[in-house]
C-alpha cells in the first residue's frame, strides 16, 4: 500500500562555517597555516535529513514491493530443507545424510528459516515500511472523510464517461430544480454531494474502499503483533496415555513440552484426563482400502478441580477444550502389557509399553527396559505385529497385514548391560543404545529371539526369569496446547479478509452533474473520475445521466 512518493531532495545540510583561523586566534603563530577545513556535515540536521531520506526510501512503494517479493523468495529454502519446528526427525536424517552441507545450512539458520535473523529482518523491515505507510494514509483518509467533494472541473468533456443532454429552454428556476434533483439522485445513490454555484453538483462515493484498504493492512500488523506476543505465552506438550491410564496436567507429567518465554508451570490447571476407551475403525467393505483407518475416537473422563467429572470424546478433527488448553488426538498405537518375573516368580515389572507404529498395518517397534529386580539389567527391543501374516503366505520374516488385533505376536531381542538409567541423565524411553550392551537372545546370537502371543509366558535367557505378554492395549498420543492469542489472530484474519474485499471491490469514484446555460437554453453534462481500479465508471456515469435526464424530461445527445 505504501505511497509512491519520491524521496525529497533533502540532502544533508552542509555547514558554511570554516571555523577559526590564524588571524582571529592570537594564540597561534603568525605563520601558522590552517589546512583547508573540509566542509562539515551538520550532524543534527544531517542526521534527521538522512533519517528522513531512509524513511522515505523504506516507506516508498518500490521498497515495499521489493521487500514483499523478497519475503516470498526467502521463504523458499525453508520448504526445501526440513525444519526443526515442523519436522525435527527430518532434520536429524538430513544432517546425517549431508554432514558437510548441513553445517553450512546450519550456520545460515536454514533449519530454522522462519525464525532466522535474515528472514526476520526482511519481514520486520516490510512491516515497518507498512506502518510508515499506514499512518500518513490513515491521517489523509480521516481528512478526506471530513472534506466535501472538490469543485466541479471547468471542462467535463475531458473526463471519462462524459455525456450531455440536448439543450432545452429554461429559466433560473428550472436550473435550480435540475441541480436539486441531481443532488437528490446522487445522494440516494450513495454519494456525498456538494452543490456549487447553484449550477453543478460534485459528488464522491466509495470512501469505504480506502477504509477497507487500511483495515486490511492494519489487521496484518495486528496478526504479526498477536503472533509475536502470543509466541511468548504458548506452550505445547505431548503425552502418550494407554487406555485405562490417566494424565494429570502438571509439568512433570508431560513426555515433552515446549514453551514460550513467559510460560510459568504454575499456570497449568491440574485437570485430570482418564482414557477409558479408544475405538479405531478400519475399512472392511471397500477392498481398495481394506484395513485403512477411517475413524479414531478416544473416550475420556475429564475432571477439572472444583467441577463435576464429565465424559468427553476426542477425535482427530474435534479437539477437547479444557482448562485453557486444547487437547488433540494426534496419534495412536498399540501398547503390549508385559509382566516380568524373577526366577522366584515375583513380579518385577508390569506395565503397558507404548510401541511406535512403523506402517499403516501397525507393525510397531518399542523398547522395554528392566533396570531393577533381576540379576542383571536387561533391555529389550521389541516388534509387535497386530495381525501376523502366516509364514506360508508372507515368508519367514514376520509382517503385519492388518492393524486390528486379529493375530497379535510380540517378538523381542534381549540385551544385557548398563542401561545408563542410573546416571540421572534423561534417556529416550523409545530407544535403546545397544553399543555397549551384550546380545543375549535374538538375531545375531545363538539363542533365538523371544516370541509370544497374549497370555503366553516365555523364559528369559540365562535363567533371568520369565516374561509374559499379559495383554495388549491401545494408547493415544495427546497434544496439549495453550495459545491465548489464537482468538486475536482469528479476529485479525477475519478483518484482513473483510478489508480486502471492501478495499478491492468497492469503487471509489467522483461524479459531476453540471448545468450549462447558454442564452435561454440549458443542457446538462455528466462525467466521472475513477480513484483506483474502477472498470465500471462509464456505465455508472451513463446510468446516472439516464436517470437524471429522465427526471427532467430531457433527451441524451448522441
Amino acid at each position, binding site marked *: *500500500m*505504501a505511497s*509512491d512518493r519520491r524521496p525529497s531532495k533533502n540532502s544533508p545540510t552542509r555547514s558554511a562555517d570554516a571555523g577559526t583561523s590564524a588571524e582571529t586566534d592570537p594564540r597561534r603563530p603568525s605563520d601558522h597555516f590552517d589546512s583547508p577545513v573540509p566542509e562539515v556535515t551538520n550532524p543534527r540536521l544531517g542526521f534527521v535529513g538522512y533519517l528522513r531520506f531512509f524513511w522515505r526510501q523504506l516507506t516508498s*512503494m*518500490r521498497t*515495499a*514491493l521489493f521487500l*514483499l*517479493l523478497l*519475503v*516470498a523468495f526467502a*521463504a*523458499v529454502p*525453508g*520448504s*526445501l530443507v*526440513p*525444519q526443526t*519446528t*515442523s*519436522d525435527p526427525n*527430518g532434520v536429524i536424517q538430513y544432517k546425517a545424510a549431508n554432514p558437510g552441507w548441513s553445517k553450512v545450512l546450519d550456520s545460515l539458520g536454514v533449519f530454522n*528459516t*522462519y525464525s532466522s535473523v535474515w528472514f526476520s529482518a526482511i519481514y520486520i523491515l516490510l512491516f515497518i515500511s507498512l506502518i510508515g505507510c499506514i499512518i500518513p494514509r490513515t491521517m489523509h483518509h480521516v481528512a478526506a472523510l471530513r472534506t466535501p467533494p472538490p469543485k466541479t472541473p471547468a471542462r467535463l468533456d475531458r473526463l471519462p464517461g462524459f455525456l450531455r443532454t440536448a439543450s432545452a429552454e429554461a429559466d433560473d428556476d428550472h436550473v435550480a430544480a435540475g441541480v436539486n434533483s441531481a443532488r437528490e439522485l446522487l445522494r440516494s445513490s450513495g454519494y456525498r454531494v456538494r452543490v456549487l454555484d447553484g449550477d453543478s453538483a460534485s459528488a464522491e462515493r466509495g470512501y469505504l474502499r480506502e477504509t477497507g484498504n487500511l483495515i486490511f493492512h492494519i489487521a496484518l500488523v495486528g496478526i504479526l503483533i498477536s*503472533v509475536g506476543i502470543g509466541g511468548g505465552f504458548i506452550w*505445547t506438550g505431548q503425552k502418550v496415555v494407554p487406555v485405562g491410564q490417566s494424565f494429570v496436567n502438571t509439568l512433570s507429567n508431560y513426555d515433552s513440552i515446549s514453551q514460550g518465554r513467559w510460560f510459568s508451570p504454575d499456570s497449568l490447571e491440574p485437570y485430570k484426563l482418564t482414557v477409558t476407551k479408544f475405538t479405531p475403525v478400519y*475399512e472392511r467393505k*471397500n477392498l*481398495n*482400502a481394506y484395513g*485403512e*483407518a*477411517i*475413524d*479414531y475416537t478416544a473416550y475420556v473422563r475429564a475432571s477439572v478441580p472444583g467441577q463435576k467429572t464429565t465424559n468427553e470424546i476426542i*477425535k*482427530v*478433527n*474435534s*479437539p477437547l477444550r479444557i482448562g485453557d488448553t*486444547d487437547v*488433540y488426538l*494426534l496419534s495412536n498405537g498399540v501398547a503390549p502389557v508385559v509382566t516380568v518375573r524373577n526366577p522366584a516368580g515375583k513380579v518385577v515389572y508390569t506395565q503397558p509399553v507404548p510401541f511406535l507404529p512403523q506402517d499403516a498395518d501397525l507393525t510397531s517397534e518399542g523398547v522395554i527396559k528392566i533396570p531393577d529386580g533381576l540379576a542383571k539389567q536387561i533391555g529389550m527391543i521389541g516388534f509387535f505385529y497386530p495381525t501376523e501374516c502366516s509364514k506360508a503366505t508372507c515368508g519367514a520374516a514376520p509382517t503385519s497385514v492388518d492393524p486390528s488385533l486379529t493375530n497379535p505376536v510380540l517378538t523381542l531381542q534381549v540385551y544385557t548391560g548398563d542401561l545408563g538409567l542410573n546416571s540421572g541423565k534423561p534417556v529416550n524411553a523409545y530407544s535403546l543404545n545397544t553399543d555397549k550392551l551384550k546380545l543375549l537372545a535374538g538375531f545375531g546370537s545363538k539363542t533365538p529371539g523371544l516370541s509370544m502371543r497374549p497370555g503366553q509366558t516365555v523364559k528369559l535367557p540365562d535363567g533371568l526369569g520369565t516374561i509374559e505378554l499379559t495383554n495388549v492395549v491401545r494408547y493415544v498420543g495427546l*497434544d496439549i*496446547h495453550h*495459545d491465548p492469542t*489464537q482468538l486475536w*489472530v*482469528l479476529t485479525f*484474519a*477475519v478483518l*484482513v*479478509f473483510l478489508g*480486502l*474485499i471492501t478495499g*478491492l471491490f468497492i469503487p471509489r469514484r467522483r461524479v459531476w452533474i453540471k448545468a450549462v446555460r447558454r442564452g435561454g437554453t440549458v443542457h446538462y453534462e455528466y462525467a466521472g473520475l475513477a480513484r483506483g*481500479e474502477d*472498470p465500471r465508471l462509464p456505465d455508472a456515469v451513463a446510468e446516472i445521466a439516464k436517470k437524471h435526464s429522465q427526471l427532467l424530461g430531457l433527451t441524451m445527445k448522441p
Partner: protein
Amino acid sequence: MTQATLVSDSLVAIYSAMFVYALAFIFFTYDLAKRMSEAKALASAPALEVVQAKAGGKGGTTTTVLDRPGPPPPGFEVTASGKVKRSLAARLGMVFTVMAWVLHVGGTVFRGVAAGRVPWANMFEFTLTATAIIIGVFLITQFWQDLQFLGAYVTGFVLVFLGVATTNFYVDVVPLPPALQSYWLVIHVFVASLGTGFYGLGAALSIVQLLQARRESRGLPSVRAIPNAERLEALAYRLIVVGFVFWTFTLIAGSIWAEHAWGRYWGWDTKEVWTFIVWVIFAGYIHARATRGWRGSRSAILAIVGFSAVLFNFTIVNLYFHGLHSYSGL
C-alpha cells in the same frame, strides 16, 4: 448403480471430455494461426496505412474488442452490430469446449457420487475439479468479454492436466482418512480450486499481454479480436484480484482447519509455505500495478511467476516434498 459402474462411467466421461477438448484445441489453434497469418498479410500489404487511416477516421466505435479497429480484411463478414464475425473454426472450438465441459463436469460429479463425498479429496479428483473450474470461468467470462483467443491455451492446458491426472494421479475411490473428515474439506479445498482457476486464466491473459506488448512495441498490426496489451492487463487484473480473494480465504480457512486437525493454525508445513509464497507473489502483483514503472509487462511477469508457483505447489510440493498435506493418495 453400484460404485464400480459409477467410477467407470466417470472415467468414460472424463476420457470423452478429453477427446472433445482435443477437437476444440485443434479448432482454436487453427483459428489463432489464421488470425496470425492475416495480421502478417496486413503487415506486408502496401496499402496498409491508407486502409488504417480510413478506419481511424470512422472512429473507434465499431467494436469494443479491437484495439486499433482496423477494417475487416477482405473476405470477413461483419455482423449487424458491427462486430467482426467469429470464424467458423472459433465457433466450432467454442461448441466443442462447451460439450467437453458438460462431460467433464458430469464425470467429476459421478466421481463424487461414487465416493459419497466431494470430488476433491486427492490429487486426481482435485485436478478434475480445478480444471473444470478453469473452463467454467472461461465460458462464463464469454458473456461479457470475448476471450476466444484464449481457447487454445485453456483447452490445451486442461487437456494436458486431465491427461496427467488420469495416467499419473489416478487412485481408486477410498474412504477419507480421519484427518480429512471435516466440513473444511468442502470449503477450504473448493475455494482453493476456485482461486487456482481464476489465477490460471489471469496468468493466461498475462502471457497474451506480454506477447501483445511485444507486437505493439515492434509496431506490428494487431491480431484480429485480440485486445491490446492495456486491455489484457485490465482483464487479467480483474480475474487475479478475484483469485487473490479466494486464495486469502483458502489461507485463513486452512489455518482454522489446521488448528482443528493438527493442533496449530500455522506451522510452516511445506504446503503452508508455498500457499503463503503464492499469496505474497500475488500481493506483490497487486501492489506492482500501483507502483511507478511496474505496470504493464513487469506485473504480467509477476502474475505468470505467481501461477507457476501455484502449479509448483500443486505438483512438485504434493509429490516430492515432505509435509502434512500428504493426501495425494499416491
